[in-house]
């Protein structure tokens, strides 16, 4: 049943130009940075004479592409997640889902995985770009895979927050703006608190937990953080929808 709702969401995304346009734009931006990364690699490396100045092509291009990807997703996810529930509220299509034999958990999970699947397409495209380097150079597979995993978890967290904000309002645009601001704050939390790295609030920053992945380090603490973040917001969404039923 979760799969059926996810399929419905994907169908909705792809039946309007919105899905295709966002997919194409994202790919265009990532490919541009990928290309620029390779260009700059040769320029920089030809100037770097000493061996300790030299870094591998995977790390150089990878940090470029994945760095920008995490930033671009900050804008892309609110645009995609804003419609998930608020649009259904506005078009009054929620009764269709509520009166079908589905639990609220299934509805929310289905919507979440529908959106995550859509964004996974982009992440896979980035991955395949990176692996295409393997045709000319010997790349660091582990580094790329850890970056992909990190980006995927980051994007899934964005989606979870986005779906919750979407469930609280009827206006998709309001949902998009709130999601964007919230995500932006969560990403930059450690910048605000740069002076005090041990601060508990800084620990909530999503970027802080993405950073080890981008260095190629897969830490279960960071995975746990992302998973907890996702579970929390999905639970809140379910509670929010249940309140609809209870309070009317």
């Amino acid at each position, binding site marked *: 049943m979760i799969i059926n709702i996810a399929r419905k969401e994907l169908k909705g995304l792809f039946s309007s130009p919105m899905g295709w346009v966002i997919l194409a734009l994202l790919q265009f931006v990532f490919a541009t940075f990928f290309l620029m990364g390779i260009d700059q690699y040769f320029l920089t490396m030809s100037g770097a004479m000493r061996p300790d100045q030299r870094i591998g092509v995977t790390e150089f291009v990878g940090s470029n592409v994945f760095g920008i990807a995490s930033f671009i997703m900050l804008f892309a996810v609110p645009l995609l997640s804003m419609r998930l529930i608020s649009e259904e509220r506005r078009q009054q299509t929620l009764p269709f889902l*509520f009166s079908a034999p589905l639990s609220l958990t299934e509805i929310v999970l289905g919507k979440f995985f529908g959106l995550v699947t859509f964004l996974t397409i982009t992440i896979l495209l980035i991955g395949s770009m990176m692996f295409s380097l393997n045709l000319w150079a010997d790349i660091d597979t582990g580094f790329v895979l850890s970056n992909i995993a990190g980006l995927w978890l980051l994007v899934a967290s964005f989606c979870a927050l986005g779906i919750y904000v979407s469930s609280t309002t009827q206006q998709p645009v309001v949902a998009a703006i709130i999601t964007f601001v919230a995500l932006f704050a969560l990403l930059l939390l450690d910048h605000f608190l740069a002076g005090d790295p041990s601060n508990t609030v800084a620990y909530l920053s999503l970027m802080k937990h993405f950073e080890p992945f981008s260095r190629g380090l897969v830490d279960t603490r960071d995975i746990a953080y992302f998973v907890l973040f996702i579970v929390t917001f999905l639970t809140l969404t379910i509670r929010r929808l249940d309140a609809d039923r209870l309070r009317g």
Partner: protein
Amino acid sequence: MTTITVEASDLTRKYGGRAAVSNVSFSLNKGEVLGFLGPNGAGKSTTMKMLTGNLAPSNGSVKICGIDMIEKPKDAKALIGYLPEQPPLYRELTVDEFLTIAARLHRVSRGHIKKAVDIAKQRCGLTEMGKRLIENLSKGYQQRVGIAQAIIHNPMVVILDEPTVGLDPIQIRDIRALIKELGGEHSVILSTHILPEVEMVCDRVQIIHKGSLVFNGSIDVLKEQRHGNRLLLGLHHPPATESLLAIPGVESVDAVEGGFLRVHHTPGHVPAEALVQAAVSQGWGLFQINPDQTSLEEVFVQLTFQEPAAA
């Protein structure tokens, strides 16, 4: 043998301190069509939302074919097809795509989805519209798509909230025929404020007013109240009341505006023939005689205004 498909007991829904629906209880048998009548804001839609599990009742319970809606919502919902007031349609999809999704979500088995979609389209007269975007359909066709998604999984109970709103007269006739047809094998609950519609399609009627049931019974009872023991008589030269009262069966006579007389007669004994004979032989100038029916509207108004009078 009759089987009870819907059983509502003491349904109450409060918004803040105000009860939108209070203590509504009824049951519905298989194959019956139940009409839900009431003025605006009476609680029709709220009751329907509670029946379909879209709204949790503050008190009371709903059982669909014996399955409790609150304890086992998924199993109970699988037996219901629901068309809300505003048909829930994904406008960016085509009719076929939308109905396929509806069938999938309502647990229609994979192999039967295509067939179920075709049957639902055929029953709602949408066969030609399969490839059209819902967005581009007229209001009437959108309404039909809404009905199609409610009956796609062949539910035991079909609940339609004002299904004929926005349709043209021919479509209304088709939809009424469809509802009658559905009544054969499913139970149907429909709400409406078009009174003749109720008389045409429903077996039973419930009138709800200010959140509580004021009438619950077979449509025949309502019809009987409607066909009172009265005749409407149009005379050019009306005689004195006494000469009318002399005719056997006539109990009383009132004058109505427009030169008409309303003749109350004893039940089961219609003095029409005697009246006509008297009119002809005595030259009263008879130009009209017909049974005087209270319109359904009047019965409805009577029932919904009883309460403030009693209070």
